[in-house]
């Protein structure tokens, strides 16, 4: 009986505690309720949304992009913000899941409203959300991946913020065809099964076709742990070179497996696969055959003002290890793009004003982290000039093959 009374007392206390917590929460919420205007702008703050995979299968690259964006905004805020307002980054985790993406998108549009959204790293979700975005009021400023469903035809609601697949394919294929001396190159695309992977391969096939060559697609799963059957298929195709689309693991598995079979086929990964851990994981032997094509310069790879500024800030906030990751650089550059857009919108920004400003066109100068890129009312492609990068295992730094200008001929 006593024991029963004791339990009862505990239950009563728990219920009382919950009631008090709920009341306090409600009260706190009431205060905050006044601070959520429709466009995500208050007198001292601008809310900017990010929609990326931060705990799912592609989080290894996408969460680093988020860090780059957040760090640039921290730097802006330390410098006084934009017209005195701090930029508050609301990063939503979509876990590479279309349903979660839909929920998070709705949240950033209506629940915790933001002035604009960056990222959107899940291509399948981009396809699903494209009609809603195009017909909506929240611009997507700086996409992490670009699908034609979202970015074509050109709309004032969408601005690509990453190296385009088409230009990646053109520059990469052009450079390696020239380097290997292949007249009509045979190329294999190793790609994860995704909307973006198929689109990228189509661009590779187009670029190879222009040179009179052929391209073959070999698909792998994003969560694959072993791709031996695909590697055997790849080797049977005897390609002049390979291009890889996917996550870090896709490159690692491909290059390691090729190394185990003693195959020395030149390969280049898409920009997202420009991470030092990939080169470290595959080692110098396989790494000698692996490069990546990028419209961004990794931290420490050159002495440009933008690179020095980003590297110094990353070191300052304890993210020095990330600065070499191309995803970090890309996030940082999109941060510059977002800040530039807000600056141009003026001291009283709204979603409509931001869209109006963006649609007139603007240029992003990252001070050397990428070749300057311009948006116009008829072209929202974003960065289009590329370079091939490899890894110098002696200095543990990335090395560029030539200058951005050398590659302009491939993407004309």
């Amino acid at each position, binding site marked *: *009986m006593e024991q*029963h009374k004791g*339990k*009862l007392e505990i*239950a009563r206390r728990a219920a009382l505690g919950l009631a008090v917590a709920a009341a306090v*929460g*409600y009260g*706190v*919420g*009431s*205060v*905050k*309720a*006044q601070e*959520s205007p429709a466009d995500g702008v208050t007198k001292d703050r601008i809310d900017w949304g990010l929609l990326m995979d*931060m*705990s799912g299968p592609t*989080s290894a690259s996408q*969460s680093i992009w988020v*860090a780059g964006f*957040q760090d640039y905004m921290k730097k802006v805020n330390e410098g006084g913000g934009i017209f005195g307002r701090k930029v508050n980054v*609301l*990063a939503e*985790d979509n*876990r590479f899941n*279309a*349903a979660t993406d*839909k*929920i998070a998108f*709705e*949240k950033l549009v*209506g*629940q*915790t409203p933001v002035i604009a959204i960056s990222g959107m790293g899940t*291509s*399948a979700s981009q*396809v*699903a959300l494209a*009609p809603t975005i195009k017909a909506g009021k929240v611009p997507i400023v700086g996409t992490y991946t670009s*699908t034609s*469903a979202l970015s074509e035809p050109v709309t004032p609601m969408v601005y690509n913020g990453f190296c385009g697949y088409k230009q990646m394919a053109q520059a990469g294929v052009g450079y390696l065809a020239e380097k290997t001396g292949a007249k009509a190159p045979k190329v294999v695309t190793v790609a994860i*099964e*995704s*909307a973006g*992977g*198929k*689109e990228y391969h189509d661009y590779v096939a187009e670029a190879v076709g222009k040179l009179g060559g052929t391209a073959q697609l070999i*698909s792998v799963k*994003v969560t694959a742990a072993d791709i031996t059957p695909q590697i055997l298929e790849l080797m049977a195709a005897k390609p002049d070179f390979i291009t890889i689309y996917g996550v870090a693991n896709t490159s690692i598995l491909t290059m390691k497996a090729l190394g185990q079979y003693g195959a020395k086929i030149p390969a280049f990964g898409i920009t997202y696969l420009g991470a030092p851990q990939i080169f470290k994981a595959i080692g110098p032997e396989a790494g000698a055959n692996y490069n990546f094509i990028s419209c961004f310069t990794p931290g420490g790879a050159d002495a440009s003002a933008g690179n020095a500024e980003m590297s110094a800030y990353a070191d300052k906030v304890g993210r020095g290890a990330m600065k070499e990751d191309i995803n970090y650089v890309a996030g940082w550059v999109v941060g510059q793009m977002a800040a530039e857009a807000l600056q141009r919108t003026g001291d009283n920004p709204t979603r409509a004003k931001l869209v109006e400003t963006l649609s007139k066109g603007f240029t992003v100068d990252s001070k050397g982290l990428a070749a300057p890129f311009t948006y116009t009312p008829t072209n929202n492609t974003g960065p289009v000039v590329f370079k091939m990068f490899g890894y110098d295992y002696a200095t543990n730094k990335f090395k560029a093959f030539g200058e951005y200008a050398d590659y302009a001929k491939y993407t004309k």
Partner: protein
Amino acid sequence: MSSATTSSPTATARPGVRPGLGRIVLLILAVAALLYVPTLLTERAIFGHRLSNMQLLNLGLTQINLMLISMLGALSLNYLMGCAGLISIGHAAFYATGAMAAAVTGTQLGWPFPLVLVAAGVAGGVVGALAGLPSLRVRGLYFVLSTMAVHYMVTFGFLEYQFRVFDVVGIPFATPSLFGFELSTPTRWYFVLLALVVLTYWGLRNTLRSREGRAMLAMRDHERAAVAAGVDVRVLRIKAFGLSSAIAGVAGALYAYYLSNATAETFGINFAIQFIAMIIIGGMGSLAGAIIGAAVWLLLPSVIGGMASEIGPMPGLLGSLLTEHRAQFVQLIFGVLVIVLLIFAPGGLVGLAHRFKALFGRRSEG
């Protein structure tokens, strides 16, 4: 008035006694609340008083709609696992079957949406009945493995279908129309989905109270005794699989239409496992448990995420977790909560509620 709601459970449970006024009032309030949810979550205000995101628990209507679709999946799996005692990890396959049937009949053939749902249900039911066939020969973990094999066979079929007929981008689903009523807004979807969940719950509840439902529960509790009592357990197993997967098929079609695009990746093994998690959290064998489990599974991470973002700047490790690693932190807290729940409420939340009820019941009796 209050005495009516706190009346003895034995009195309310007594057969032939009419429900008390308190229960009727509660029912009316519950219906009113459910009808008010879309307005509340769309306007983010209650009777003109604006509410903050946290007061609304960081929830949106899309989330509620996806939760309602998951409730259909959880209800059907609980019917199979909790009530019929057949453990299956092939539920994503039945969802995928429904989505595929919807793609063929809806996207390709242009059938009306109600017929598409019927087709999805039939396809799910047929595949489910076939998936249940091994249960006639194998038991336990062997049977679980057979349902896993079904999962991979169906998702492979989905992938092939998607690649051959559509594209790697996915299968598109147009905005559906129900008797001339276009489901173009989350609010419209909400009412359709809510009606389907209520109908499914009510249908399964009645099925479980029927002669066959009781036989199924007997089969779950003591198969040999059920056989001795004249129950044909082979037929019952196939029927349970067929009904459960038919509901999952319909849910799969709704899921694909709601997202407007579906890929084979959508229906991975994690998708199947989440339904098992839902019914364990809610309470295995209880239809109400399936509803509660789905709600907790779908909504709790969002509530935790909202709270984490409301806390504001914090020093040290906690600050770093809340700002730079919030996504992982939310997953961690959610995981810990689920483990704590499983330790202290092995019968799920419904079991926990029963324990509380018994505790307070004994007090009132004392």
